[in-house]
């Protein structure tokens, strides 16, 4: 079992370290129902929830980037009460644990959401989504608001650019675990309208930025770290575990290859055991470069004899 949160009234334990990220499977987890067996996943995170309904933004929303996209939607959702009416029954039936993503805009809203979700069956944990500029004080407030109104484990998703500071603030306020990181925001020119638009950025190159942030956060906090951002293949997921994460959330690769979520989950399913035996990275992934290096070290030619041979005649100078 993978322990996603530490301490608190109940830890979040998952059978598999691979999780569908917020927004990927919608509110009911059914988005790719014909393409993906979610019982193979460790858990899935709901689309972001707020107490009040949020509408969709106007204007361009999707701009292609080299090897990626920029997407702007504005976190549309019908408000928590309606989401619970419509989708809580699906959560109870879900074959994988459900983590509810709460938009952590202010302590009061978080409090209301926490109360409502605490009473809802089928919610394994809460993930608090921080906005990009949340200060340590704001983070402390929303985490405490959640902790004092629910028994569920609390994960905090921190922004990429301030991952270490935000994760430390979340840990100090009592969060059971952190998710590194929310995707960065960018600005791009929409090729259709000719306008500059802002939005979140997604793509496989995001992995390197996230991997660095994960490595830093793992060293800075004591609670378990879940990696999120740029996982597009099993090898990406393993790199994050190598860097000290206990689990990974997987997102936009579903757009390209929906089944990849399941492939990553299957591939990493047996990982815990192997790692516990002290195996090296490339022993559970034959073909990683280190194997060849060790191979080479094994078949080094015998060392030269310690006394040099007699100096041969007419050696060129």
């Amino acid at each position: 079992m993978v322990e996603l949160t530490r301490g608190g009234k109940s830890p979040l334990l998952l059978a598999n370290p691979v999780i569908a990220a917020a927004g990927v499977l919608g509110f009911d987890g059914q988005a790719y129902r014909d393409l993906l067996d979610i019982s193979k996943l460790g858990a899935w995170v709901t689309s972001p929830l707020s107490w009040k309904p949020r509408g969709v933004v106007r204007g361009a929303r999707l701009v292609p980037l080299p090897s990626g996209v920029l997407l702007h939607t504005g976190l549309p959702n019908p408000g928590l009460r309606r989401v619970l009416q419509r989708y809580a029954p699906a959560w109870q039936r879900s074959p994988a644990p459900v983590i509810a993503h709460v938009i952590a805009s202010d302590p009061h809203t978080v409090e209301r959401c926490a109360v409502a979700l605490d009473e809802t069956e089928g919610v394994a944990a809460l993930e608090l989504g921080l906005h990009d500029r949340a200060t340590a004080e704001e983070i402390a407030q929303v985490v405490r608001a959640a902790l004092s109104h629910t028994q569920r484990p609390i994960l905090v998703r921190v922004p990429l650019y301030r991952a270490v500071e935000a994760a430390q603030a979340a840990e100090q306020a009592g969060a059971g675990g952190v998710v590194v990181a929310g995707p960065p925001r960018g600005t791009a020119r929409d090729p259709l309208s000719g306008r500059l638009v802002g939005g979140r950025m997604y793509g496989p190159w995001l992995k390197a930025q996230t991997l660095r942030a994960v490595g830093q956060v793992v060293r800075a906090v004591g609670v378990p770290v879940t990696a999120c951002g740029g996982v597009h293949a099993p090898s990406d997921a393993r790199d994050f575990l190598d860097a000290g994460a206990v689990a990974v959330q997987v997102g936009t690769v579903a757009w390209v290859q929906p089944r990849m979520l399941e492939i990553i989950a299957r591939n990493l399913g047996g990982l815990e055991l192997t790692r516990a035996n002290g195996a090296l990275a490339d022993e559970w992934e034959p073909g990683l470069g280190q194997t060849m290096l060790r191979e080479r070290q094994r078949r080094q030619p015998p060392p030269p004899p310690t006394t040099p041979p007699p100096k041969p005649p007419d050696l060129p100078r």
Partner: protein
Amino acid sequence: MRETQALIERVRRVSADVLQIDLTVEPALMHLEPGQSLFVRPVDQADWQPYLREQWIPVDVTPGRVVVEGAPTRFYAPGDALSVLSPVGRAIPLRPKLLHLLLIAEDALPTPFMHLARKVIGGGVEVTLVLRGEARRYPLELLPPEIEVLHGEADWRWPEQVEMFTWADQVLVLAPSYAYMEVYGPIYATIAQLRQHNVPDDFVSGLFYYPMACGVGVCGACLVPARQRITACTDGPAIDLKQVRFP
């Protein structure tokens, strides 16, 4: 929605702007209804470029074969294998007792009308296609000969509009995605005025082809401005303009 593989059989450049690709598909894909499309990427896309799947729109569906049509974007060659998610979207809803179908394409290739037109012509429906702006560059020889085409130099004037909107039992409008609001809004307003704000359901629909990411209604990339949540990928491409919130 299913994931299958398809094979490119032929690539024809039918004009400077239009490419037709013949695909060999699995039997499941033969049940595509007019309006439904394919969400495609090369099978061997090791380099994540382009990142997103492309939406390919069928113009003809016969057993084992789908012909898609579009503007040439990247290089495709016969023999290329494709990963296909399908069907994307709903069949275009047709009004009961449909006899006169009016199709309006403004600045956009009328490709999304072709599968529908072929099908309803077979059922005896009269189809008129209005090509405006850039849409006039579409090669006429690609159209079924039964379609009446209004394809003049001149703009489409108010008396003609009234005539057509009165003649038609159903109207479908198409524009490029950046101009939906500006094209669909005035057409809807005109029809609403004509009909004294008593427009029947599905009488006039806009086709919505926003760039898509997930194709399954969750990511919000293709949300149509409306009171309820309408996503073009699952509720479209044809959306009753009564439901749309124009700015």
